[in-house]
């Protein structure tokens, strides 16, 4: 029997029991679609998070340790000299820039309102390093840092609270912090909480007028020359600071070094495992689907015992009967797999289009279908057809003609 003929016979068989075939396929459809969709969702989350973090991936944060080691030397603060050492190109080639910051909570008064903001004193590179943009005015420049200018840049929430919706309205306005008056020269774009509650000003300005603290700083942002240099830069930071703070045992360090990059790697790893795990759970429904195919094929063979007898009487070989039923179950499972792929891809695309309407957090979130998940799940459904159809088809092929003909 040639393939075209076999396919036609199989299609006729499936069409004769439309509802039954559809329900059987449903098991496969659900399994395949959910595997594809879940993998796509996991991928979407990963891509979205990575996209947000990628620009920050070459950053290393250094902060003083809280609490000191009992019996050890008193912890040393991070100071300007530490910053200078890290900036020294002869000590490290992988550190591109170091941005010091000192920060604290302070009450910020506008013309009419008061806002409890996170006041940050830093240098002009801070904006760029944090991957933020201005919505009005400009960030302070190097000259203003050097001259201890009494200027501030407001986070969008602060500007909004003090001077209303229009960020431009805040420009040139005074704000009072710690009984000192500063001039607003810029408003930053929103990045979500808590970054929007920031008030930034030149580091010397903060020291002189607000927090004092001499040459102490409470945070350094170290920029590696690129994301791949992060581990090397991290090591350099630890080496240089340990030397300067005379720390021999890593347990006694009085500073902490964290990189987004290593956290991102951990996150990606966890997410990958999670995605695989959920996909595996979804694949269990494929097993259920396979049992459905097996069941329906067994029923089909029993129902058509007489037909098998007649086909054998008029010359069908075992192989012809085997092929007939195998092709039928392959068609059943393959068609289910195909529809499942379409549904899975369709839902993923739909998700990508609908997600942004759930708010800015989802703006860049798009489930992305991976080709391997499509190929694999379709291949699995074909394998199901082969395996779940194999036993019933073999049974049909082995039926003895006289027994099949006696069956009514």
């Amino acid at each position, binding site marked *: 029997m040639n393939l075209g003929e076999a396919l036609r016979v199989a299609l*006729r068989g499936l069409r*004769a029991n439309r509802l039954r075939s559809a329900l059987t396929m449903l098991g496969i459809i659900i399994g395949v679609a959910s595997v594809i969709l879940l993998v796509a969702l996991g991928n979407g989350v990963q891509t979205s998070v990575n996209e947000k973090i990628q620009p920050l991936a070459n950053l290393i944060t250094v902060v003083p340790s809280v609490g000191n080691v009992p019996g050890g030397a008193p912890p040393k603060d991070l100071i300007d000299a530490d910053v200078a050492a890290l900036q020294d190109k002869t000590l490290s080639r992988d550190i591109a820039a170091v941005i010091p910051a000192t920060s604290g909570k302070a009450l910020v008064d506008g013309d009419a309102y008061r806002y409890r903001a996170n006041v940050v004193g830093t240098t002009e590179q801070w904006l760029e390093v944090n991957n933020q943009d201005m919505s009005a005015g400009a960030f302070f420049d190097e000259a203003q840092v050097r001259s201890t200018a009494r200027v501030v840049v407001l986070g969008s929430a602060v500007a909004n609270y003090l001077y209303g919706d229009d960020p431009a309205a805040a420009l040139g306005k005074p704000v009072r912090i710690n009984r000192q008056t500063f001039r607003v020269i810029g408003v930053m774009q929103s990045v979500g909480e808590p970054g929007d509650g920031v008030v930034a000003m030149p580091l010397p300005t903060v020291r002189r007028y607000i927090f004092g603290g001499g040459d102490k700083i409470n945070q350094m942002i170290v920029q590696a020359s690129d994301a791949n240099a992060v581990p090397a830069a991290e090591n350099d930071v630890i080496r240089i600071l340990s030397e300067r703070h005379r720390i021999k045992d890593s347990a006694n360090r009085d500073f902490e070094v964290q990189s987004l990059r290593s956290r991102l790697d951990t996150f990606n790893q966890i997410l990958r495992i999670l995605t695989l795990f959920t996909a595996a759970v979804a694949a269990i429904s494929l097993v259920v689907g396979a049992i459905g195919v097996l069941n329906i094929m067994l029923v089909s063979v029993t129902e058509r015992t007489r*037909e098998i007898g*007649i086909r*054998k009487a008029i010359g069908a*070989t075992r192989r012809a009967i085997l092929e007939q039923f195998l092709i039928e179950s392959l068609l059943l499972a393959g068609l289910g797999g195909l529809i499942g792929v379409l549904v899975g891809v369709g839902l993923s695309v739909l998700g990508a289009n609908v997600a942004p309407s759930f708010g800015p957090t989802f703006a860049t979130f798009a489930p992305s279908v991976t080709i391997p998940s499509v190929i694999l799940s379709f291949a699995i459904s074909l394998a199901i057809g082969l395996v779940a159809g194999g036993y019933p088809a073999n049974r049909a092929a082995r039926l003895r003609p006289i027994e099949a003909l006696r069956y009514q």
Partner: protein
Amino acid sequence: MGDVPSCRKVPIGRSVRCCLPDTGPYAIRLIGGIGGWGASMIQIEDVTKVYRMGKVEVRALESVDLTIDDGEFVAIMGPSGSGKTTLMNIVGCLDVPTSGRYLLDGTDVSRLSDNRLAKIRSRKIGFVFQSFNLVARTSAIRNVELPLVYAGVRIRRHAARVALEQVGLGDRLKHMPNELSGGQQQRVAIARALINDPVLLLADEPTGNLDTAASAEILKILGALNDAGRTVVIITHEEEVARFAKRIVRMRDGRIVSDQAQRIRTEVSA
């Protein structure tokens, strides 16, 4: 000898012959033909068939000898359970004897494998059963085409149409089995049995489910086929049907109890 096929006249499905591969059946026939041309079509020697159902043994055939020549029209009769169908299954290569020998058309087929038997059925034998002959949800013409499908013949449509026209169903080609009367279904089955141009036509109570008129129709077709030279073996309960044959074999308890030729064949009164 070279033109063996033309020895038999082929009224139905003549066009089929040109579609069939010319070797196959005839090659077997020439090589395996121990007795050569003119030997028995069916030669059954001391055949016994025993069915085992758990501990119980049913001896469905008990040392049966039967020879049927080319061109005969034989009716097999006997009470229910006498072994008629069992005999026909063996004659038709659907089953093999427990012991004894069976030569079909000169070839010993009593010990062949499933697949070899399937090939022989495909080339040499046409079956008509009592009922539920046709593959459901499959049109008349597709049913008739099936033996050609299994024989690996590619161009089938025309032959199938001609065969259906010969049994008077040229206007029912696309009908499904459940849209045909019992007599029409049997005629489709006959067309299907003949499309491979078999040397032997076996019918197990082909008129068992039909009224007199439809029975007469079927018998007329079988008679015409036999007149044209085809060997026909028919199982029946009805004396009128049996009288229509040239020879009546009677069975009881798995044995042949009488075997008589009829000089005058009754004509069918439709």
